[in-house]
């Protein structure tokens, strides 16, 4: 009997393994697992898991899947994390909706017009804006997409105001009148449209990518852009096509979502918000930013979690928490590593131009040392004098800029050294604020001890989050997890009714330091923040020069090589994340003392994304660059007259980065290098590291090796592949020449 059972079990296991080896079999296994999970949830949850809720989640998740797909598509084509994915189609969707509501244009014509507009906008964004950044670091381009998203979002708000004077109260519904009820949801034409359109789009997309020349070329470019370029694939043109598709998918998502969820004329249809970004980006990231089917499944899964969470808890706060837990569990359960190609792509994506120190040949020269020290002294003097010539309000805001500079320093450790992105450092800042604030306000703890406690708590929190997110060494998992933390923290942890023991309800007093030194007024607090910032920068610089700092950098530069030195890269990166989180917690602790109160709204997840923008604009390649970013972004908003604030929002960011695509830090260091070069030339000093890149740039084109000479194998591949678009063989002239191939017939 036992043997028979064992044999049966073995056969079943064998059958399962055999199934799992085939794609269809894998899908079947997953489907069965999903059904089992559903049955368990239906039995366990308070209100069960009704079919209608699951189906509703499926529909809304599928709509989000369109955005997740567009993120994946753009990433694969450009290695760019597209933060404007949801906004790209917003303007076009609003146009379609207005045409339908205001001018009563036929639904299909209106949608058609909207999709054409979306295609145009997608194409224009790529050709007018993004193409200028084809050689810029990918992080810069990601920030460009943030700026583009803000512009499109603003337009989608303004258009109805201009068009309908803000009083447009119509509804935008599909013309389908079929309804059916699956308890507890009544599904009507709007849901059915989504149920029909989304699979059609997915099938169409699959067909396009598999069976059309453009599709094959896009996949080729996505798999290995450099190789595709060598093979003559017009990567730029393909990039335009991809952005057109992204625009259309984004608009389609909006046009499918609005009939189901409703439309308000003065709000954006894109629903541009951290929660939506979290859901779509998470789906894309779970898919490793490469696998479209996985992205779709993940988006649908998250949609179901969203609906089921709301059904169970009837509280948005718990829904966010549930989603974060699901994402963490999904990452913990994730077994496969990224492929080498993808890993390489991600490394490219994260590539940050490191700023070189002053070359050793010059560093010890007296004039260089004097200039360097003089500059530092001038900056410090300027910082010390700010309270003397600024108003108290501006001094207070300048203190906040100093605190954001601490956050910038923390992000240098995490992103520039350890190679990970955090979109949720605002949450660490918030936890630091909460812990410091409650200890000072409610328990009368010494300020320094409270700050230390805040740092300790945020460091531990970072460790806990980092364990699932940093297991794979690289990849944007941490970005998603931290964004999720920011969403949950703001919507749950920072609400006093849920955590009265964590959130200070009373005023946080500015107790004197050591019981003697007052920090009560704006100037005193400013100097306190300045001292802490200077100490932080010294400490971070010390960390950079330490064994731990070098290990962090090497774990990012070459993981395998680092591991070969018996260094656990995961542990090193966890340490970087913990230190980074602790510094953000320190900034938060100081913030709550400065503001004398905890306001959960200050820790909105959107602000965390702003931190990302701040450090990238400044330049993550160096500590001063990142700090410069904080000073620039928040200084423009806080200290300059009100109009200048637009410099660092939407159009301003795009405009600035168009002229200085490497960020502000790069400008600063280019000037430094120029001066050093001039000094070296005047003193007849030969400094190879200073002139090498100049010589490289000045080298005549003929001296450069051809693509074919670079890699004969690639050239042969090109000749063999003969990829053709629109009937024209598009091998590179260089390649053809190298191979002695004549003009294509």
């Amino acid at each position: 009997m036992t043997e028979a059972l064992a044999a049966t079990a073995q056969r079943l296991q064998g059958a399962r393994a055999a199934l799992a080896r085939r794609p269809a079999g894998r899908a079947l296994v997953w489907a069965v697992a999903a059904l089992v999970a559903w049955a368990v949830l239906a039995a366990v949850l308070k209100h069960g898991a009704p079919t209608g809720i699951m189906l509703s989640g499926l529909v809304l998740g599928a709509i989000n899947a369109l955005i997740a797909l567009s993120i994946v598509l753009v990433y694969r084509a450009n290695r760019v994390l597209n933060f404007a994915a949801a906004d790209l189609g917003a303007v076009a969707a609003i146009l379609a909706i207005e045409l339908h509501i205001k001018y009563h244009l036929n639904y299909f014509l209106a949608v058609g017009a909207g999709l054409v507009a979306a295609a145009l906008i997608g194409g224009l964004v790529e050709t007018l804006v993004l193409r200028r950044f084809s050689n810029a670091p990918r992080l810069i381009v990601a920030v460009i997409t943030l700026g583009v998203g803000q512009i499109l979002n603003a337009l989608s708000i303004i258009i109805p105001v201009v068009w309908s004077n803000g009083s447009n109260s119509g509804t935008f519904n599909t013309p389908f009148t079929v309804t059916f009820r699956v308890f507890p949801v009544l599904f009507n034409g709007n849901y059915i449209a989504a149920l029909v359109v989304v699979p059609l789009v997915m099938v169409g997309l699959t067909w396009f990518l598999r069976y059309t020349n453009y599709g094959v070329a896009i996949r080729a470019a996505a798999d290995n852009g450099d190789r595709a370029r060598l093979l003559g694939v017009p990567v730029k043109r393909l990039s335009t096509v991809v952005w057109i598709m992204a625009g259309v998918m984004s608009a389609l998502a909006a046009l499918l979502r609005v009939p189901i969820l409703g439309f308000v004329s003065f709000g954006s249809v894109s629903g541009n918000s951290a929660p939506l970004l979290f859901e779509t980006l998470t789906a894309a990231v779970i898919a490793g930013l490469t696998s479209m089917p996985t992205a779709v499944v993940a988006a649908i899964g998250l949609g179901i979690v969203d609906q089921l969470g709301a059904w169970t808890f009837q509280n948005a706060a718990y829904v966010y928490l549930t989603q974060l837990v699901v994402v963490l569990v999904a990452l913990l359960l994730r077994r496969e590593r990224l492929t080498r190609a993808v890993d390489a792509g991600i490394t490219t994506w994260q590539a940050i131009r490191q700023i070189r120190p002053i070359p050793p040949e010059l560093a010890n020269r007296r004039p260089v040392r004097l200039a360097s020290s003089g500059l530092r002294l001038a900056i410090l003097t300027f910082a010390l004098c700010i309270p003397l010539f600024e108003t108290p309000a501006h001094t207070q805001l300048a203190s906040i800029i100093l605190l954001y500079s601490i956050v910038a320093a923390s992000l240098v450790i995490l992103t520039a050294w350890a190679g990970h992105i955090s979109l949720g450092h605002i949450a660490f800042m918030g936890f630091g604020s909460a812990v410091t604030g409650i200890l000072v306000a409610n328990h009368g703890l010494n300020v320094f001890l409270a700050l230390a406690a805040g740092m300790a708590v945020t460091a531990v929190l970072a460790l806990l989050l980092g364990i699932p997110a940093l297991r794979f060494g690289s990849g944007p998992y941490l970005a998603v997890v931290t964004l999720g933390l920011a969403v949950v923290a703001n919507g749950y942890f920072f609400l006093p009714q849920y955590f009265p023991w964590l959130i200070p309800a009373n005023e946080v007093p500015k107790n004197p330091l050591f019981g003697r030194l007052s920090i009560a007024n704006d100037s005193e607090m400013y100097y306190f923040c300045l001292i802490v910032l200077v100490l932080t920068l010294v400490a971070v610089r010390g960390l950079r020069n330490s064994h731990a700092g070098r290990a962090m950098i090497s774990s990012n530069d070459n993981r395998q090589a680092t591991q070969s030195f018996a260094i656990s890269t995961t542990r090193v990166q966890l340490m970087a994340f913990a230190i980074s989180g602790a510094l953000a917690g320190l900034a938060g602790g100081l913030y709550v003392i400065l503001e004398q109160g905890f306001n959960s709204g200050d820790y909105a997840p959107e602000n965390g994304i702003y931190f990302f923008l701040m450090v990238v604009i400044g330049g993550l390649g160096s500590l001063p660059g990142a700090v410069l970013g904080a000073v620039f972004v928040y200084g423009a908003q806080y200290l300059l007259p009100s109009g200048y604030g637009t410099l660092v929002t939407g159009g301003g960011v795009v405009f600035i980065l168009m002229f200085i695509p490497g960020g502000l830090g790069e400008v600063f260091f280019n000037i430094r290098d120029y001066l050093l070069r001039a000094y070296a030339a005047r003193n007849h000093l030969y400094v190879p590291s200073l002139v090498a890149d100049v010589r490289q740039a000045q080298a005549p084109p003929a001296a450069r090796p051809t693509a074919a000479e670079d890699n004969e194998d690639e050239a042969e591949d090109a000749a063999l592949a003969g990829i053709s678009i629109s009937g024209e063989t598009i091998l590179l002239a260089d390649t053809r020449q190298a191979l002695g191939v004549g003009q294509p017939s």
Partner: protein
Amino acid sequence: MPTSAREQKEQINSLQDPFARNSLRGAYHVRKYALLYVCGMLGALALAVFPAVNGSGGSSLPGVPGSSSVAAGSGPGSASSGSSGSGGSGLSSGGSSVGASTGGVSNGAVASGGGSSVGGGASGGGGTGGSVASGPVGTVRAGTGVTRGGTTCGSGVRQIPFSAYADNCVAKFSGNNGGTTARGVTASTITMAVRQYSDATGANSLATQAEVEAAGGVSYATSYGYDQSIVKWMNSQFELYGRQVKLDMFTGQGSSTNEALGQGQAQACADADTEANSIHAFGGINWSGIFESEPFSACAARYQLDVPEGAAYYPEAFYQSWNPYVWGITMNCTLISLEVGEWVGKQLGPYPTKWAASDGVVPLNGKQRKFATYVPNNQGYQECTQAALGVEENQYHIAKSREDEYNYALDIATFPQDAQKAIIQFAANDDTTVVLACDPISPIFMTQDAVQQNYYPEWALIGVAETDTDSYGQLWDSKAITGHLFGLSQLAATSAILNPTGEAGQALKAAGVPLNISSATDYFELLSMFNQLQAAGPDLTAANIAAATPSIPAGTGEFGTWNFGHAHTDIVDSRQIYWDASTTSPVDGKPGTYIQIYNGQRFQLGQFPTSQPPYYP
């Protein structure tokens, strides 16, 4: 020179002589930690040299001695206000001030009503320690003489004779007013800062402004012009003891969009800092419609700024925590929740559903009412909702099983999603009556979702966040609300305040301002501010405002009944309304308006009838 720790160690170990080895080790150590030692020494030096401060946590306001605050009406001598028109008014001029006013003279507040003689002087807040005009402070004569507006004062006569809400009249003041009694107060002026948001020309602000104009209002710039004219007129009518309110506008750092969502406190605090430390204002109002946001109100209290129109619809406990600085016209949500509890307990709970249709499957009318409250999940609104539910359960014995709830995130980007989920939930739970304890945007989505779900419950207004205004009602799905939307409103009936012969009509005509919804609303808000400034007496401090406010007489007029009592908000009663989609709104001329029942009668706590209300007669 070795740079890495390993190289240094190797070099140290390479030395044979222990002294040389230790010296080199010491040298490296000093080089590595020199900065730390220097900082430590500087810190120690600072500790030794800098003057010590006491450990109480100083005020962040230069020139404001102490930071003591006074609970509203808590001091001896605070008066309970008399009912409208009752008795004469008394005055105490410094007779019973309490506490040591470190900021100048504590002269007692002007009190009125019932002939009681009260002193409202209190210590501290808002004082500046500035100069005090020499000589004794002049006497305030309330209820007698002739006002500076030329009205003969008498028992029950208001400072503005046709006003139902103005403070009791005070004879024209002459003599010494105490000079600089508080920051922003001089012998001749009371500076009130006017804060313009930094994003006043941004996309969201333009959208909001378009909404205001579509609802019959005017642009913020025009509205501010009205405010200046109204203030000028009120300066000539109210007794400010030789002072005039001076508006000082500035463009701040705060963002209207952020602050509306409870964010941007850093910029809001910087604006409060500007008002306090750069403009040196006594208090502040907002350029975009006078009332201020919650983040700013919290900061203003820390900077000891008087905010006559602070964050609206917050619990009284919040105002208490900001005491004595933040006030408002609109009813605080603590009182709203108590009235809602009574209304539901008496007029809805005991009766079967009458104005619903179906939940998509079964008819809802005639069933025992089951309530579903849609409320943001932030602390203030949650507190109030729980208070209302407590009243319903404990006082009126409405079973917990008849109370459903959905807590949504106060994030405009997620309003659609939360609305959809809530409606599905409410329909599935057979909730008959959806209580709108929410912002006015969410019902746009909720009503659209309800129609999609074929769910037609009763929609019960509680009056918060302008959900009871025509302009928002017109944005909600007409099919969902026609015949189903009713409830409480604490605001005035628009037709009443737009009546040219009404109080606002007369006052605005006198001020030379056209009558519209913006100017009328601004009038009442500024009236409340001037009432407090007059009531505080010549010794104008925030503490004296708090002490005197309970003595401002209650009044009933076109804006309901105002009676601060010991609370921080004026309005204390609600009218009952229902939505009529077929009637044109008197506000904006568009179809759809709220109709009031009981002939516009308003109900205070404890006064609600016990019969089912006659909505949709």
